[in-house]
């Protein structure tokens, strides 16, 4: 199961990297979202997949599954939620003022 998950993480990372390297801003943002999903799965996988019971005291005698990766992932999801939301609004504003969503047209020199 772990190896399957690692392969999935690899697929997600390659998809994300492909998207991040494209020129369209929206694709780049989607790419960062896919990348963040990949790393969340990675954290879950390195923590060990289902090796015991649900880590709630009183529901069983154990052994319990490590609950920490899930706490980490929840935090990371919240953060990536905030960042992606900000990025979307920023990209929209940028498109409105600069009139392009192609990053290769966003090159600038300090002399303007």
């Amino acid at each position, binding site marked *: 199961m772990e190896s399957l998950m690692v392969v999935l993480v690899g697929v997600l990372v390659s998809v994300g990297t492909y998207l991040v390297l494209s020129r369209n801003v929206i694709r780049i943002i989607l790419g960062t979202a896919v990348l963040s999903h990949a790393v969340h799965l990675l954290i879950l996988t390195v923590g060990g997949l289902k090796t015991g019971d649900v880590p*709630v005291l009183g529901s069983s005698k154990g052994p319990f599954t490590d609950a920490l990766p899930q706490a980490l992932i*929840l935090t990371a999801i*919240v953060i990536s939620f*905030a960042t992606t*939301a900000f990025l*979307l*609004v920023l990209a*929209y504003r940028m498109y*409105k003022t600069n009139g392009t969503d192609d990053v290769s047209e966003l090159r600038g020199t300090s002399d303007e």
Partner: protein
Amino acid sequence: MRKVNDVILRTVVKGVVLIILTLGVYLFFSGHNAPGGGFIGGLVLGSAIVLLYITYDIETIQRKMPFDFKKVAALGVLLATGTAIGSLYFNVPFLSQTDGYFNIPILGEKHLTTVTIFEAGVALTVIGTLVTIILSISEDD
């Protein structure tokens, strides 16, 4: 504005929003020892509000719910940090929590925790942020 024939959407939403709101509240309260909690509950509640905004126009909803959602988010953060910093007053480590069983008339014995207040803050923050994001993009043009 172009007139869209959305009778089905409007009719369905009237019922569905109620279900979503109930689910949101349920998820929110089941937080402390089952899957759920402030973040998920807040997301569900927030999406119900967003659904309302999408179905009816912004002005109608603003009239019925005259909140500044930025302030809702701020209130949420204040509530969450407030409960966290409340532990300083009782001289226990920051972010400490406590719980207990209380006998409430009508409802019977209930398990109440201080985490719920913290979670309420989280939920408000999530609702506020979610709606603010959607509104700030859609209010343009």
